[in-house]
């Protein structure tokens, strides 16, 4: 059974078809990448998969279960987590608190107990903070835990989002351009993280513009163009696909891809 599958997913915004009958399926434990030129529908597809948009037609299956149109917080409860291309950080909170928020579903949340500060609430807070610190250590932000989230550099914020998403203990992690705006060193750090995340048993789906990064890490790649599926396959298959070269990578892109292989 696939970890995630899309069946003929389509969505239109006022007559403009953003995603047009796209199907794919992601095997558990894989890194699955979605690429395509600007406006190809990658982020829209991501927003459908994470419950922000409801598709006009088609189905989304999470581990075989139909989750089409489910609200984001219900998808989270079913083991889906994501990060955002345009960072969605809780800027009023500290770095560690951002990650603590991600533990929401793993915590007992009785409002009355919280208001009257039952001893269990204090214990749980300490456990949550401990777990959040572990995750910050994992993404390399251990020493910034108590700083204001807004004080982190750009690459740090990207890794903070990953730590927060992992706090959910997801089965499936959607990464929306995790290396966007990162310098080569930061990109390498993100790549290492993604590999470790997959090694821990989490399936990863990512949208990314950095071709070298995509070609190196992906088990399979889906190429979108104009909202439609152009090709799907391994990095090598996609790289050799003449349609992909013509429509998307272009001469410059294919040179880049070839260099990444070597």
């Amino acid at each position, binding site marked *: 059974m696939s970890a995630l599958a899309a069946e003929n997913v389509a969505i239109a915004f006022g007559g403009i078809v953003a995603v047009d009958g796209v199907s794919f399926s992601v095997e558990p434990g894989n890194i699955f990448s979605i690429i395509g030129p600007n406006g190809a529908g990658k982020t829209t597809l991501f927003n459908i998969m994470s419950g922000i948009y409801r598709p006009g037609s088609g189905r989304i299956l999470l581990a075989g279960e139909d989750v089409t149109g489910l609200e984001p917080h219900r998808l989270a409860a079913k083991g889906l987590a*994501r990060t955002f291309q345009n960072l969605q950080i809780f800027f009023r909170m500290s770095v560690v608190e951002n990650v603590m928020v991600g533990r929401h579903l793993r915590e007992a949340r009785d409002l009355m107990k919280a208001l009257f500060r039952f001893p269990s609430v204090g214990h749980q807070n300490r456990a949550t903070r401990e777990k959040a610190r572990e995750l910050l250590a994992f993404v390399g932000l251990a020493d910034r835990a108590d700083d204001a989230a807004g004080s982190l550099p750009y690459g740090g914020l990207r890794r903070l989002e990953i730590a927060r998403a992992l706090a959910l203990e997801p089965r499936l992690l959607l990464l929306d351009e995790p290396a966007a705006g990162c310098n080569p060193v930061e990109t390498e750090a993100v790549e290492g993280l993604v590999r470790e995340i997959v090694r821990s048993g989490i399936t990863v789906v990512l949208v990314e513009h950095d071709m070298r990064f995509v070609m190196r890490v992906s088990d399979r790649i889906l190429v979108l163009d104009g909202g439609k599926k152009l090709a799907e396959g391994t990095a090598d298959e996609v790289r050799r696909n003449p349609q992909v070269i013509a429509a998307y990578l272009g001469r410059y892109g294919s040179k880049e891809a070839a260099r990444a292989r070597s």
Partner: protein
Amino acid sequence: MRGIFSKRRMTLLVLVALVAVLPLVFPSGYYYRVAALVWISALAAVGLNILMGYAGQVSLGHAGFFGVGAYAVAIGPARLGLASWICILLGAAASGGIAWLVGRPILRLKGHYLAIGTLGFGVLIALVLTSEAKWTGGPDGTSVARLAVANMRISGPTAWYWISGFVLVFGAWLALNLEDSPAGRALRALHDSEIAAALGGIDVARHKLWAFVLAAVYASIAGSELALFDGFITPDTAGFLHSIELVAMVVLGGMGSVLGSVVGAALLTTLPQLLTVFVEYEQALLGLIIMLAMIFLRLGIVPGVQRMLARSAS
């Protein structure tokens, strides 16, 4: 900032110390009255801060709930023969219930639309209180029977100073507990990004609704306190100007800060009294002080001063 000197404990300590020590420096009985009014307003502000400061949702109709609480202790004992303290609870339950019903559709609105939606709600409550003269005494208001416990009448500034002070400390304790819990983190998270909060598994609509209900209950209890303390109540307590005043307390003191709400309430309650010496310039001066405070301490007084202290320390 954790352990014994956590923000939560420090805030509580400061509040308890204030309530306990202030009477020692009061030159006359009049000060008990002013301080009691501060504690009562502060309770409503601390509640509104849960909605505005934590969750970032504005309510321009919050005095409506204040009015419900006030009129509950006016009408209940006089017309239905209920004990005042039962009416405080009934008023709080009614306010919470109304907030729950109204909050569901209204909290779907965002930003300015939410402001106008809640404003309309507040105006509606004030209108009902004004026009249902048979029950409420109409625009002229109505007298309120004094609080009595076990046949002992409780009235006078000194008694109410201690009651309202205790209730404020208790309310602040609950709000601080909430802040440092999964629900409190959820509220503060959705303040910054609803979408990231939702994908973190937080039921955003539900959390907003509970914040609204809690804030309504705080306002209602504060309203009951004021009515019982003053012995007289008019529909103005539920009016638009009072709603604005409550919002101003939260923003001036510092959004998200429990201590800030208390400071905001203290300033907006005592400044008009202090400024009476300036006679006709009183209102203008009050406005000027608020403007300057917001220009120079943009985060509000308490967080603004805290940041200044932190900077000078490092």
